[in-house]
């Protein structure tokens, strides 16, 4: 019975490792300037974690195979080295691993959070609300008009609560449901939540950041590849959470400018 356990465990271990080793399930292609650091970090961790996983499982299987249901009166023996060896191993192996990863991790993290956006970065405001994203471009005057929650009127597409009657700079603000950005230009994303907590997750950009109501955060990133990608909400925000998404359109600079002009006309 012990031997059977060992066999099953070995099978499970190899079966679990197989899709990883063969890269059956991998993150989508990275289209950001910072993403590679995260991917490398993930790869390193996968290597070390995978080693620990397979090693420990196989060791367990081996011991159970060898030392289970032995014949009556077979004498128990003790592992040379005992607990000290174990503690030492844990500290040396894991300790160094922990420090290594901790330090490496810092770098990838810093790329995203500890560098300020470039002054020429394109500013886009994202507003999350139950259950859709809307995006705002400052328009000709380069200014975002103030938000008046009491003016929000979704039936009239006034998702940001703009007040064009009184705020002049509100009249040229461009509001869209799709986020369109130029390729290879840094984007400074200003994040605002209309109601509850939401999150901004673009797998290809290796970006995930919560929207916190009452606390406007900002992110900056650069997309390096044109195409259409999904922006999804990853913070449970209510019944429509599963359906809360928008598209990220990465266009060449000139196409982007044309798109922006057309949208401006619609306003």
């Amino acid at each position, binding site marked *: 019975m012990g031997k059977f356990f060992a066999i099953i465990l070995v099978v499970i271990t190899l079966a679990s490792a197989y899709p990883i080793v063969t890269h059956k399930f991998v993150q989508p292609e990275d289209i950001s300037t910072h993403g590679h650091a995260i991917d490398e970090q993930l790869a390193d961790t996968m290597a070390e974690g995978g080693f620990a996983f397979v090693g420990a499982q196989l060791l367990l299987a081996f011991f159970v195979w060898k030392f289970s249901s032995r014949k009556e009166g077979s004498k128990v023996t*003790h592992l040379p080295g005992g607990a000290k060896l174990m503690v030492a191993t844990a500290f040396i192996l894991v300790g160094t691993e922990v420090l290594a990863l901790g330090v490496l991790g810092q770098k990838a993290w810093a790329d995203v*959070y*500890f560098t300020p956006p470039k002054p020429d970065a394109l500013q886009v405001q994202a507003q999350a609300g139950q259950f859709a994203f809307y995006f705002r471009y400052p328009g000709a005057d380069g200014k975002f008009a103030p938000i008046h929650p009491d003016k929000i009127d979704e039936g009239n597409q006034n998702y940001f609560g703009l007040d064009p009657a009184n705020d002049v700079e509100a009249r040229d603000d461009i509001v869209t449901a799709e986020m369109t950005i130029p390729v290879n230009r840094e984007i400074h994303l200003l994040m605002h939540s209309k109601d509850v907590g939401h999150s901004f997750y673009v797998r290809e950009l290796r970006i995930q950041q919560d929207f916190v109501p009452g606390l406007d955060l900002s992110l900056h990133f650069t997309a390096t590849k044109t195409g259409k990608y999904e922006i999804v909400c990853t913070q449970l*925000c209510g019944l429509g959470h599963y359906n809360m998404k928008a598209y990220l359109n990465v266009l060449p600079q000139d196409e982007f400018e044309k798109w922006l002009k057309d949208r401006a006309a619609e306003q």
Partner: protein
Amino acid sequence: MEEAVQPAHVHAPPEGFISKYVFSLDHKMIGKQYYGLALVSVFMGMVLSWLMRFHLVWPDAKVPVLGSLAPTGAPGGLITPEYYLSLLTMHGTLMVFFVLTNAPFAGFGNYFLPIQIGAEDMAFPRFNMMSFWTTFAGFLVLVLAFFIPDGPPTSGWTAYAPLSAVGKDAGPGLGWGQNLWAISIAIFCVGQLLGSLNFISTTLDLRAKGMTLMRMPICTWAWFITSCIGLLAFAVLLPACLLLLLDRLAGTSFFIPSGLVVSDRLQNHAGGSPLLWQHLFWFFGHPEVYIAILPAVGIVSHVLVTSMRKPLLSAKVLIYSMMSIGFLSWMVWGHHMFVSGMNPFSSLLFSFPTLTITIPATIITLIWLGSLYGANIQITSASLFALGFVSMFVSGGVSGFFLAQPSIDIYLHATYFVVGHFHMVMGVAAIFGILSGTYFWFPKMSGRMMSETLGKLHFWITFVGTYCIFMPFHYLGLVGNVRRYSSFVDDFMAPLMPVHKFISIAAFITGAAQLIFLYNLIHSRFRGKVAPENPWNGTSLEWSIPSPPPWNNFGGKHPVVFHDPYQYGVKGSKGDFVMQDSPEQIVSG
């Protein structure tokens, strides 16, 4: 100062059904009550997860009976998005609070802690009884949410504000459903605080003669450490729930900022901080993970060492590791909030202690593995589940290693990778601990043996099934499959459907296998063959008394302890082991 004679503790064995089975003061009965409540909750939680898995892979299929059970939530058996979230919320809440906290800690702890330290009962039997019935009240309040018009809460077991705080405008289930949730959890906290208080005082002051702290079995230690963690954790969650209720019912603004427009309605609140809830919740929430897993670690070590017929490499090291895990668990709550808008520098501060926890966790694993070397493992249902636990503990621990790093968490946060991780390590692993303990202690608790054949069958299906369910979760996460989605309209995630189908089917089979366990439990209780006093040749005090133990455990006598808990592989009158309370000298072997 000498004590006046106090009759209170010389309680006679209770007469009559009520005082014996319902409002019992006997820690053994209370332990069974906790276990029973956990059993009911775990099957409820399991059925909820079935419904979720079913809806995920067959979104337009009608669930037969559900239509009449939940006419609004599932019209004609079609599960609505909000009802999916209700299932998710209730599943999480039932499992985390009423199963993973109740069974391994309150259940087994109540039953065996006093026996293992040679006490007649808990220090405060009345508190003990109140503790259970409070918890039960919390359970009733929570389940009531299924039957109100508003429907069960939909904000997840983490109840993030302001979604959980603004009230019904935010959607179905966030009116009275959410109120009931907060009330239930607040009540639950009170119950757990009473329980922890009892555990701590009992362990400190009611140990038998010769039972030094270091002579306590590892599971007693685990329960003791857990009760210390629980005392702090629930003492923080309780105020958090009260503040949440005030925001919801009294119009205060602890968690709700100004200018929120929910369902076209401008909310009349100002200045609250949503992150405050997250901090308070996770300050409880992360220790809660250890409240679930440490008792399992203790139980499994206890079972393993008995089945190995040799002492652990070092019980001391194991205990110190558990302590350091308990200690570290207070500095890591922020790792749940890496992408929550918390100061990015603090993310790094939280990341280091989180990674550090890997060290004591690894030590524990290596102690188990190293002890297996040269052992003579007796394969029983109990030891199989214990070995299974070790395997799960490793698998779940390794994935934790990814999520502890902020940079990787940017990509994996809120994906199925996280779901796979915590189900592996705190869900299934803890359940394996409970099951191992059940097969191990059932003879003592009921006086009858469980069927080993059924037990092993149960193990094989559960063990393989669990891996089939939760390993793929990690793969889905790596691809970027977002959690808490009621269906994948998302064209990105649609291609992953086959994996989801595989998981769902595995979940149905594994779940069904639990009925074998239930049958085994009930059948053996009445028809099982009569259990001897010490079926597994154990050494700790619970094996020195009849099965089931008499009222007041040691029949009024007072055990005296002479040895460390795990004297195996030594010459003793009873064979290869010496019981803790046997005066005989140990011939070093």
